[in-house]
């Protein structure tokens, strides 16, 4: 596996980097961002957080618009920001909707043509990328996962289905139950009507219902003025978690905040501190 360094810029003493590689899973060139705090001694290793972004984003938005590096540097945590879909893969219909196709991979493995060859973001996030990170970067091997919006759904799905891989979980304005509104525009084209039972494994609230793994907490922030609140359905997540004794949830509804990166920037410090404390000493 070969990584190409696209850029490296100093930020809060550490380095904000972007890498490019040819993904075996998505079968195309993919970029990811990685923030690495300054090593204070040779051989120092860091815990790592994956941050999954929302629809219409790529690997750039999070690193420029949240100011997270200040807190990642202080808490000494590596942050990885994958892209939100395969890139430079032109498929018919991949730009027809802002919630489907390019920049809207929904962190699932598609089983339908023409998407199934490249749109395998679930395997990318849960298998290929963690392995790359472990091999190449100074990590302890302990990972957490965080996400915004579509990335919130992705973070919950990836963490609950891989609880030993992504040990800590937090989300901002997560899409909690996309199956309730996205059957025609997301699940059917990616996964097919004949596979409806397979849709649940990519929906946060549905995955919560069947979770039987180690006890886990989901730390959630959501703006009370979020323009997408009717689609995000955080109450559904609270309801389903409440019925599962293996899970607990802390939902902070933030008065007056919307869905934007201004909201993410305001609360990202709390999330980083949460992961840092929960992942423990490195």
């Amino acid at each position, binding site marked *: 596996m070969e990584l190409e360094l696209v850029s490296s810029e100093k930020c809060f003493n550490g380095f904000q980097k972007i890498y490019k590689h040819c993904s075996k899973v998505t079968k195309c060139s993919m970029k990811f961002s990685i923030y690495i705090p300054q090593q204070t001694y040779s051989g120092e290793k860091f815990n790592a957080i994956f941050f999954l972004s929302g629809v219409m984003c790529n690997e750039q938005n999070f690193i420029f618009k949240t100011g997270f590096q200040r807190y990642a540097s202080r808490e000494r945590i590596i942050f990885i920001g994958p892209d939100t879909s395969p890139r430079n893969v032109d498929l018919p219909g991949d730009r027809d909707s802002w919630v489907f196709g390019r920049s809207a991979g929904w962190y699932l493995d598609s089983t339908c043509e023409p998407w199934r060859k490249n749109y395998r973001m679930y395997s990318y996030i849960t298998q290929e990328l963690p392995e790359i990170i472990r091999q190449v970067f100074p990590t302890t091997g302990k990972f957490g996962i965080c996400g915004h919006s579509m990335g919130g759904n992705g973070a919950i799905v990836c963490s609950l289905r891989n609880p030993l891989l992504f040990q800590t979980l937090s989300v901002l304005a997560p899409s909690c139950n996309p199956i309730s509104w996205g059957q025609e525009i997301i699940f059917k084209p990616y996964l097919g009507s004949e596979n409806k039972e397979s849709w649940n494994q990519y929906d946060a609230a549905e995955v919560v219902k069947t979770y039987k793994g180690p006890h886990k907490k989901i730390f959630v922030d959501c703006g009370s003025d979020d323009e997408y609140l009717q689609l995000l359905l955080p109450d559904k997540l609270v309801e389903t978690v409440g019925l599962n004794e293996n899970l607990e949830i802390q939902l902070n509804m933030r008065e007056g905040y919307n869905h934007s990166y*201004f909201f993410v920037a305001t609360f990202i410090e709390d999330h980083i501190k949460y992961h840092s404390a929960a992942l423990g000493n490195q």
Partner: protein
Amino acid sequence: MAGAASLELVSSIKCFNGFQKVYKHVSKELNCSMNFSLYEPVAANPNDKFHVLFYLSGLTCTEQNFIQKSSFQRFAGEQKLIVVGPDTSPRGCNLPGESDRWDFGASAGCYLDALVEPWSKHYRMYSYVTKELPALIKENFPTTGKFGIFGHSMGGHGAMVCGLRNPELFLSISAFAPICNPTQTEWGKDVALKNYLGEENKDKWNIYDSTELMKTYDGPERNILVDQGDDDEFLKTHLLPENLKAAAEANPKIQVNLRMQPGYNHSYFFISTFISDHIEHHAKILNA
């Protein structure tokens, strides 16, 4: 509260307890519609008034880049400062050649008042920043009347020029990777100053060069913070901070704290790393 006749609220988004707003208005100086950003911290009391910081952005920017990429709002909120971010040039004027270069014309107003046609009718960013916008802010927002000014790159140049030439208005000055001595750079001599001001007006170039201004400055004492990355791709061609430092050292009225930051480049990653220090610098002076 904004005066309904003069300002139109474009957006208002909660951020670190305050509100990141963008306003639009028709500028008399620039003869066009202009946007500016304004961060308003949360008021503990209805009659609270705030000191104001102007932030001037660099080449290619609009009023959006700084508010999205620098993460300043946390510190403006903590220090209880209103932060105003004007655009970098007039907009929608459709002048010939205005979009030919990234370093001249649209998004490159250089915070000067042009003397040459066709720029002179619209490209009056110096007067906009030092006269029209401060008056607008005082009239429409809960300010103490005390202002500071800072900026990045071309905006660092603008902040120092506007600050040095208007010491009663801008009480505090700081800059990130500023263009310090444009009359000594190719960009200044062959592009910006030449095309905006004209070769026939070379005697009027120095008033837009902060190094030259420092040589002759005789106003109240100034304490200016400048952060500069030593890995900045524009350091030797455009910025020339060593010239600024030399001019300041020769003038007892001016203290320049030039901090060369090892490994940092020209980007918003550099600005966001040091923004809290700058806001603290201004707060100390404005609160005194």
